[in-house]
């Protein structure tokens, strides 16, 4: 008998789900949520970023349940997100007030406030570390104690919090960047309305920031490599914690002092400097800098930089390049949408295929008649 949807689907599904559980359990090891939280920072950050849901605990739970599959973990988080009522919007966060852990500039050696390397893989050699095979908690504890002790002797605590200024502000003062009025229009919320074209910049940035890390990186790379017109210099990459405040929902008089602090979140922010040609009043071409902006949850610098490239691409539509076409970019980078539709091809298509078969047979029949 052919491959047909027959009775028995329910039992087959249950057996398949049991088999999945078996595969997760058969090694007879359990990974604790806490272990994922403390050892898989990068994965947790990426999952939160692609799910637009900032909760390290839930992300770690999703990773555990998904057995480490990114697409599956993001899927779980997004579905959970749909069950949560969205009650408030936070106040606009000010990235200047970030508690910076890492901040570098590829544009200037001497940036006000200095370069702060922080923690990154960028300067490591990618050699497999075989000592990790026999890593022990005792050794780790010792290392931590030594590290903290060495800091104690060399670092002075400060009484005040210092914020790092934005590099672009200095360049703005020099007139190299255009000054824009701060736009107080409330942003479009793409989770509460569907994306319309042409999309507003706020909608574009939201789609880019929750885009699949690999997809955003690939399209950013394509734009850089020849399928785009953008050649950026990274002005500033910063990683750190940002506080979030909400206003009192019922209070009429709003005062900054009355805001509620609801926690902070870790983020990566990138400002890329991109030279563009503009025509001046005399219709002569001149060079000017513009900013490409990238931001995402957690520490994920590649994605934020790629996002900054695509942001700039989409600000300047060029018909020859797909990376400058907002429908092409924005409609294809979402993790849940792309993986979902690709995977639907695994569903049976008996009806549509039968219909196609009929169509092709009818045409063949007709063609033969014509030849005779």
């Amino acid at each position, binding site marked *: *008998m*052919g491959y*047909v*949807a*027959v*009775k*028995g*689907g*329910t039992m*087959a*599904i249950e057996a398949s789900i049991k088999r999945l559980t078996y595969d997760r359990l058969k090694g007879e090891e359990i990974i604790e949520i806490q272990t994922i939280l403390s050892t898989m920072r990068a994965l947790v950050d990426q999952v939160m970023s692609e799910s637009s849901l900032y909760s390290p*605990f839930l992300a770690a739970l999703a990773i555990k349940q998904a057995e480490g599959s990114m697409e599956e973990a993001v*899927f779980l988080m*997004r*579905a959970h*997100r*749909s*069950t*949560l*009522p*969205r009650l408030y919007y936070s106040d606009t966060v000010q990235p200047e007030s970030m508690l910076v852990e890492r901040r570098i500039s590829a544009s200037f050696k001497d940036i006000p406030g200095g370069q702060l390397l922080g923690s990154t893989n960028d300067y490591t050699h990618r050699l497999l570390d075989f000592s990790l095979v026999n890593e022990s908690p005792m050794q780790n504890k010792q290392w931590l104690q030594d590290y903290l002790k060495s800091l104690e002797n060399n670092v002075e605590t400060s009484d005040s919090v210092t914020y790092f200024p934005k590099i672009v502000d200095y360049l703005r003062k020099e007139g190299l960047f255009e000054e824009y009025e701060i736009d107080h229009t409330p942003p479009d919320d*793409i*989770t*509460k*309305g*569907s*994306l*319309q*074209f*042409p999309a507003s910049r706020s909608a574009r940035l939201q789609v880019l920031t929750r885009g699949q890390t690999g997809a955003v990186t690939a399209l950013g790379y394509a734009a850089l490599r020849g399928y785009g017109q953008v050649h950026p210099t990274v002005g500033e990459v910063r990683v750190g914690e940002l506080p979030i405040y909400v206003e009192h929902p019922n209070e009429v008089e709003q005062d900054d002092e009355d805001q509620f602090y609801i926690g902070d979140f870790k983020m990566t922010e990138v400002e890329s400097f991109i030279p563009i040609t503009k025509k001046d009043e005399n219709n002569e071409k001149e060079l000017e800098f513009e900013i490409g902006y990238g931001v995402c949850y957690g520490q994920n610098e590649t994605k934020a930089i790629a996002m900054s490239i695509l942001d700039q691409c989409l600000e300047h539509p060029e018909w020859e390049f797909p990376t400058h076409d907002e*429908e092409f970019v924005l*409609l294809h980078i979402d993790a*849940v*949408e792309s*993986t*979902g*539709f*690709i*995977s*639907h091809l695994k*569903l*049976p*298509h*008996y*009806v*549509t295929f*039968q*219909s*196609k*078969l*009929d*169509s*092709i047979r*009818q*045409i063949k029949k*007709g*063609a033969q008649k*014509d030849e005779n």
Partner: protein
Amino acid sequence: MKTNTHFAFLDEGSKKEIRRTMLKAVAIPGYQVPFASREMPIARGWGTGGLQITLSILGKQDVLKVIDQGADESVNAVSIKKLVQETTGVEVTDQTQEASVIQSRHRIPEVALTKEQILVLQVPEPEPLRNVEASEYVTKRLHSEDEYSGAWLMLFEQIMKYNKTATDADHPVYVNDRYVMAPSPIPRFDNPKMHQSESLILLGAGREKKIYAVPPYTDVKSLAFDDYPFTVESFEGEHCHLCGATDVFMDELIDSTGKSLYQCNDTSYCMARLNEKEKLEVESSYA
């Protein structure tokens, strides 16, 4: 940290918003109303649009039927039914007549639906003009200007190439003489069932974030030329090898000898006919 699932999974605010979208869709037959499609616990492209509609309209007294490719027991139908039942507790059924809400992928049941019933169709690609125009911005404008030469041209080109129209499932339809609509990938065989349908038909595309509708007693015409009329899939001379039905959409199976066998695609229809036959046989043997 453990939470109970909300009734019908989605929060009340989301369901209300989706119902509002449906009201607009009913008011403008065939028009694709954009909505803020939620991410569901099943994959995008596996029926999340239909599922959001179903979850938003279900009340506790409703009876649900889910079909996938004509079958109630197909893996995706089972999975959707299970999810809806777990989060709402509504009764499910295989019997088309018993259901108040029928969610379906790729088929309209063989039994005519009534005005007490709502048919929810899952739609992968709601834009009937997507094949001729890639941009959403442009297709939206074409719809607003009633500019469907692209769709007609597609049929015309097929006639030039193949001597007949060569659409398969998802043959575009004109709804209420205004909007050209993708009827979800139902076979051409099912297109006529939409015309002057007694039941409300709601179509949901989750990934593409559109909801549209065919209200009861609405004109639905399949696009065709006078000299090249619309034709449905032909099962001429074939009958279901189980129940003997003709004039239904059939699956083609290859048996062990390599011969083609035909069988009702609508499994619950086939089952009902078989039961009926058996009943008659039993009755006649007792008599």
